[in-house]
């Protein structure tokens, strides 16, 4: 067991951000952490990263209690924050040498660790270039290198693929798989359900500071039942229409995401004509209709009443 979180709690004023989270993570396991904004993901990760003090509960990393032995516990931890946390005026190699030093790597092992980390993220050729000149995708890859160069047992990756090009995204996915094979336990947050399904052996869904579902992807999909997601794209979606769509018999949940309504239903063939007719009666133009099989996204919608991509 590399990470053990017990009854973790944290409040900000009257708002309870995390309300009794429990979490276990083994070596080589990738855990997907999903939740809408305000679910408590960031607070939970900040506490595991040692940035926030929990009000109650305990966090143990590699057998070290984070409160009592913070340095030993943090030595086993790597973090990859959502936004690249790097010094823009330094070169990639200088950044990594600095972060390696901060993680306690000795001079003899530092150069080797930097070279390996750069190779893993495919930036060896650009090692001497200043980070300020890097593209967004390259910064994110270097951000990962800074998180892994001391070979942590536990890696926290907070939305590492947001806003990156497909090539960098693939590279990041491959990196995650390689780290997993090397025995690194990873907590991975993302709003892209496809990559969570692809990368994460286990998924934990949070809402309002609590875990509302946990299990393997297959287990969660079974829990999602046979509900299908009906996506109807229109020209002028608005809240009043959404309320009426929610009231259609057979609709379990309905949300508005961008130009589309997403309806969760067991009877798509019955709901679709009624919804379509209603939308036309309201003078809306339907530009596309899609029916999706149950996936983590539909389970997320069912559990939280919110869409993953509407964050």
């Amino acid at each position, binding site marked *: 067991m590399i990470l053990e979180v017990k009854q973790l709690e944290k409040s900000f004023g009257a708002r309870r951000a995390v309300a009794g989270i429990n979490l276990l993570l083994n070596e080589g396991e990738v855990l997907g952490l999903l939740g809408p904004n305000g679910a408590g993901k960031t607070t939970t990760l900040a506490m595991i*990263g*040692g940035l926030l003090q929990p009000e109650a509960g305990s966090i143990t990393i590699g057998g070290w209690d984070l409160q009592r032995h913070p340095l030993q516990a943090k030595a086993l931890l790597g973090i990859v924050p959502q*936004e690249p946390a790097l010094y823009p005026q330094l070169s990639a190699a200088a950044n990594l040498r600095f972060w390696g*030093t901060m993680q306690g790597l000795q001079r003899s092992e530092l150069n080797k660790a930097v070279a390996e980390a750069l190779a893993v993220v495919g930036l060896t050729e650009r090692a001497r270039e200043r980070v300020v000149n890097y593209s967004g995708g390259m910064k994110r890859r270097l951000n990962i290198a800074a998180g892994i160069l001391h070979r942590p047992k536990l890696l926290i990756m907070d939305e590492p693929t947001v806003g990156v090009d497909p090539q960098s995204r693939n590279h990041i996915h491959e990196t995650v798989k390689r780290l997993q094979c090397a025995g690194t336990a990873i907590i991975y947050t993302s709003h892209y359900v496809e990559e969570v399904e692809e990368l994460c052996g286990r998924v934990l869904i949070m809402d309002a500071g609590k875990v509302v579902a946990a299990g393997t992807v297959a287990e969660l999909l079974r829990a999602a039942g046979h509900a299908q997601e009906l996506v109807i794209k229109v020209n002028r979606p608005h809240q009043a229409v959404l309320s009426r769509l929610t009231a259609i018999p057979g609709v379990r949940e309905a949300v508005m995401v961008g130009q589309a309504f997403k309806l969760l239903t067991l009877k798509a063939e019955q709901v679709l004509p009624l919804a379509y007719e209603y939308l036309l009666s309201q003078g809306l133009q339907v530009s596309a209709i899609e029916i999706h099989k149950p996936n983590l996204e539909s389970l997320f919608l069912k559990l939280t009443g919110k869409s993953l991509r509407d964050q």
Partner: protein
Amino acid sequence: MKKCLAITAVGFQQMFADPMYLIFTLALPLLLTWAMSFLPREAGVYEMALLGVLVMFVALNLLTSAGSILEEKQQGTWQRLRSSATPYRAIMAGYLLRFSLVAAVQALLLLLSGKLLFGAPWNQGYGELAVVLAVYIFAMTGLGLFLAGLFKTQGQVQAAATGIVLVGSMLGDIFFPMENPSTAIKFITAISPQSWAAHALKDILLQGAALASLVKPLLWMGGLGLLLLTAGLLRLKTEM
């Protein structure tokens, strides 16, 4: 120690990559030191103005440098540092060392340029000068960390720093000797570390004052610095 020095070194690299920082920290005060050399050289007006430039720019430099911690918070490097296997005391020692070294070099350059280029009569009390400057730098570093703990962005710290430094310097009986000052001006003069430091430096360099006669300014600046530094360190430790 190694980690502390690495933090100091990275800070230097970041600072010196920014030409505006160098202009603001060195070129502008040197220019003002030169401008002050045209003041009449009687009754200590010129010398006091030179020392006023020194304490004002050292204060501005220290307060805004401490605000750079907030910039690091915004770019995420502060959080990454705090999540690393580096003790908080080593992290803060790295920052404080950098702030103090830059301020000391800045003060030294301004004193030397005043003496060597513009004929300021600094010929005595170098040991006392070092002590007063060290305590002044400590006080302003404490104020800087306090502001960094109090505010959320570097812009807010810069605005507060500018206000504090300008009020403390301009109304602190440094550049404009005041006859019959109001109660408010007397109060500003009494609490402004810039005013205490400038007068103490003037007493040392022009009259050869010994440390024994400077206990009051040293205690005030040291005490204030300690109080603010402690508050700033505690606040920054608990804030994400």
